[in-house]
């Protein structure tokens, strides 16, 4: 019989000094504690007990396989695009700094636009990330470039813009 949980009460009731649980059983922390105190070993069929991967239920597998098949809005970059915007006070070297950082992180600038409003500039880079670059790391590194009173960088995934502005 498959049992979803092995509780402290189950351990207290168990005869012998070993309980073998199947691969689907989750042992509660309290059961582990009671077993430890009374010298009972809890083990899986193939060796020591390890908590199984969460079973999200019969509907869940579809989430992984089908969610990505729901039609998405059309966009230029599929998958690895970043949109980097830079806003700040104008001074020489900002464009060079940001584009050098993008290149160093493995990004390829597909498009760039720049505009001045009064003494402030704003730049938009459309970047395609090559290879194994990690979005989170790239975002952190680029956003760390800016300083208060100088300029601010914000990095967002291209999918955000695709979802918001394309049907």
């Amino acid at each position, binding site marked *: 019989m498959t049992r979803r949980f092995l509780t402290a009460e189950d351990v207290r009731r168990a005869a012998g000094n070993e309980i073998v649980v199947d691969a689907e059983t989750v042992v509660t922390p309290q059961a582990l504690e009671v077993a430890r105190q009374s010298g009972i070993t809890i083990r899986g069929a193939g060796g020591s007990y390890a908590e199984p991967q969460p*079973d999200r239920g019969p509907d869940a597998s579809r989430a992984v396989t089908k969610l990505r098949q729901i039609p998405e809005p059309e966009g230029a970059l599929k998958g690895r695009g970043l949109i980097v915007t830079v806003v700040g006070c104008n001074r020489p070297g900002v464009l060079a700094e940001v584009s050098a950082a993008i290149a160093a992180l493995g990004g390829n600038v597909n498009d760039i636009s720049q505009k001045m409003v009064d003494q402030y500039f704003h730049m938009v880079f459309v970047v395609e990330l090559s290879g194994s670059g990690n979005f989170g790391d790239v975002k952190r590194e680029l956003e760390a470039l800016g300083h208060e009173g100088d300029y601010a960088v914000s990095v967002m995934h291209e999918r955000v813009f695709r979802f918001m502005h394309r049907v």
Partner: protein
Amino acid sequence: MGFTEQEILETVRMVALETLDIRTTTLGISLFDCADPDLESTCEKVYTKVVHHARRLVEVAQSISDDYGIPIINKRIAVTPVSWVAAASGSHDLVPLARALDAAAKEVGVDYIGGFSSYVHKGFTRADDALFASIPQALAETDHVCSSISLGSTKSGLNMDAIARFSQVVLDTAALTVDTGGLGCAKLVCFCNVVEDNPFVAGAHIGVGEAETVLNVGVSGPGVVRSALERLGPEADLLAVAETIKRTAFKITRMGELVGREAASRLGTSFGIVDISLAPTPAVGDSVSDILELMGVDRTGAPGTTAALALLTDAVKKGGAMASSSVGGLSGAFIPVSEDQGMIDAVRDGALSLAKLEAMTTVCSVGLDMVAVPGDTPVDVLTGIIADEMAIGMVNNKTTAVRIIPVPGKGPGETVEWGGLLGTAIVQDPGRFGCSIFHARGGRMPAPIQSYRN
């Protein structure tokens, strides 16, 4: 480039300046398989199952936030109403279950866990009885547990006995949390036509028809709507106002759809719904009241407020419905009084009365939310306020809720600070008159004629 510069800057501005965010990612976890004849074992299973499924929730939400550059503010858990899970134990005291839920919430690092709940819109089971008796102590003792109760529905009518008992539970909860200004009541809400996939606390829980685990997302963005209306200016007519709100709601909801799909996929669980609700926070600008005032009422609560709110709620729903095929939950505009700086000011200035708030709830998405009343409010007055609100929901086929806080030791006009997202409240005056005989009658209010649809 694939997008115009204007489009890119619009999105960046929404996040950077207009507080667009994903308000909550809520993982629903069914607890049906945790029922056990022994309450202690039930608690163990509940704790173990919640931790087992939600262990990666905070980490996944953070990773999505990092990857997409959209802030995800809250991570929450919603569970099966515990009275259904605890019934098998026959226990009279369900506080241990609240402790187990609280411990699990702390272990996985979520903000709140909703589901210390029961459905009593027609009658009480023994477990519901035990749950009602346990609520005040449970909410006083725990930090993260929220409780919600279904007291009526269009299909079943109103359970007036339950409403009367609930009012007493509210008073008892306030009495047990005197030192925090009755804060326990902020985690306690009752519903008519309860929503079974609501990702927002305090009403979050998952109903009988839900999957083993399901991820629901709540998006918010009063600040974005406010800015859009600011740009539109006072000259535009109301059709233009509705169109602007609808377009903005569409864009906000698309963010929810994106994050919901991604989070469900990364957690390997079913994707439930996107709840597009304009949920204010005490932060300046993140206010539903500001939107109403931009639409043209002098102060929130002035004549015209209900009409403006009706337009707002409807336009938000229409934009949301186009943006996602999975719009659910409460979806509309929230009016939690203490959490919205504009509404706090309106109450302070005498513009927004309790009566006007009740009128507004006929067209907003929920009901009387985060309303403070004097600590010595008689129980029959609370029953009357709650019954009125439930009746609005019952007759109009909509969800209504009451989250009311009798603030111990405070009278009308006095201020209470709850801090954080719960904000500041001015205690409102429920009036001099009550309904003691109506309260004492009890029984059930039959389902209205509009429920006979079969």
